[in-house]
């Protein structure tokens, strides 16, 4: 079993005029995993994804996807046969019907899985004879997903795949992603839906203002991230509790809320030394970790 990264970038950067959209991003995405790519609007997620696919040229830095350079035009063509991509705006040919669009896409891919296509058509309830321009936003998304899923790609890159889907549509999509991963597809998807990320992702990358600010496995995050609520008899300074592994400290009067990514025991020990009158350690979910990570300082 190889564990050579499927996506690897070094100091990948992109500016639009004076705006630095992506700043020195080093990604290393493991194969056969589901990796979620989180970040606020404008954090640089779509720009990063487009650079990975060779659709935008980086200003500096390099990257490889499935062992092929993202800066090489010839490699980029070969790459697109192995990578399925569902873009943010779900690009499709509006004048075609659903059936024509499927037939058209199918003709490019010899590995096309007709059986899976049929299964997806019936779960997604897509009308074959309807023109794409008259499809609802959710239907468009479902069609774009079908076209990507039925190819059985080595790597699946999705830019906000659940946008416009209703709860049932989201559930079906998540099941499909899990199934594809089980068959050996590596999944890399950007999302704002933290609950869905928390359920299916193995790994999470958070981008903030163009920088990669968190890159961790969800198992590790569940294991080591904790929120510690402290009460002191006299107000304490934040610097009293700052130490490696402390991600954030918030103080209100005699109360202090500390988020740690490492050894919670060390913070508890320090709090004891500082005579905390109450110490409470609780697990912290991805939503709170995300909020802490992208909080403006």
């Amino acid at each position, binding site marked *: *079993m190889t564990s050579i990264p499927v996506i690897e970038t070094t100091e990948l950067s992109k500016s639009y005029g004076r705006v630095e959209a992506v700043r020195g991003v080093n990604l290393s995405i493991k194969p*056969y*995993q*589901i990796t979620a790519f989180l970040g606020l609007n404008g954090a640089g997620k779509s720009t990063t994804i487009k650079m990975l696919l060779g659709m935008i040229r980086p200003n500096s830095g390099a990257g490889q996807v499935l062992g092929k350079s993202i800066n090489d035009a010839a490699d980029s063509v070969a790459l697109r046969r192995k990578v399925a991509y569902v873009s943010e705006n779900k690009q499709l040919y509006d004048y075609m019907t659903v059936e024509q669009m499927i037939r058209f896409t199918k003709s490019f891919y010899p590995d096309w899985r007709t059986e899976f296509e049929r299964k997806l058509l019936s779960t997604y309830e897509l009308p074959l004879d309807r023109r794409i321009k008259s499809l609802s936003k959710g239907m468009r998304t479902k069609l774009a997903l079908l076209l990507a899923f039925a190819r059985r790609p080595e790597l699946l890159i999705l830019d906000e795949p659940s946008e416009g889907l209703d709860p049932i549509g989201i*559930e079906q999509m*998540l*099941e499909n992603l*899990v*199934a594809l*991963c*089980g*068959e*050996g597809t590596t999944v890399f998807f950007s999302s704002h839906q933290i*609950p869905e990320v*928390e*359920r*299916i*992702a*193995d790994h999470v990358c958070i981008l903030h203002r163009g920088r990669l600010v968190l890159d961790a496995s*969800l*198992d590790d995050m*569940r*294991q080591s*991230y*904790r929120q510690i609520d402290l009460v002191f008899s006299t107000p304490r300074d934040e610097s009293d509790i700052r130490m490696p592994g402390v991600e954030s400290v918030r103080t209100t009067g005699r109360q202090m809320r500390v988020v740690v990514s490492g050894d919670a025991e060390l913070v508890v020990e320090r709090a004891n030394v500082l005579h905390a009158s109450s110490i409470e350690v*609780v*697990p*912290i*979910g*991805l939503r709170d970790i995300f909020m802490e990570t992208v909080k403006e300082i």
Partner: protein
Amino acid sequence: MLAATGISDNVGAMKVSQLTALSCCCIYTPVQLFPMLFRLSPTTGQPLYLQLMQQIRHAVESGALRHGDQLPGIRTLAEELVVSPNTVVKAYSELEHEGLLELRQGSGAFVSVKRSTRSQISRVHEAHSQVRKLIGGLREMGLRDDEIRRVVEAELFHSAEVMSIR
């Protein structure tokens, strides 16, 4: 990774399972068909594979799963729970390492209860009934549940400290 473990899907289970609710999962044995719930909570501070391991272990300890029973294939269970297949792979292979599951190439995961595990199960059963009795007595004394919990935890913590000092 998945191919290496070689657990194929139980096709029969898949068909029946599609009739059941979305969020829960069922285990089917070849002989007997009984739905059993695995509930993984993404928001608690515990990795999902550990939650799954505990729930399988608990199912064995409570007798819901017996020696020789078959668990769903990795992909089937992952799709039913809507979790990454790697979660199921990790739980199954850790349990195999512990000796509670036997992974057979191409045919699935089977519960394997060894004699030592059996006596452990009966010890756990005995512990359950003793604790139940004890808690009943403490409640009669007028203690609230959170007080009981605190006493038990303090006692466990204290005895663990004594052990570590030794």
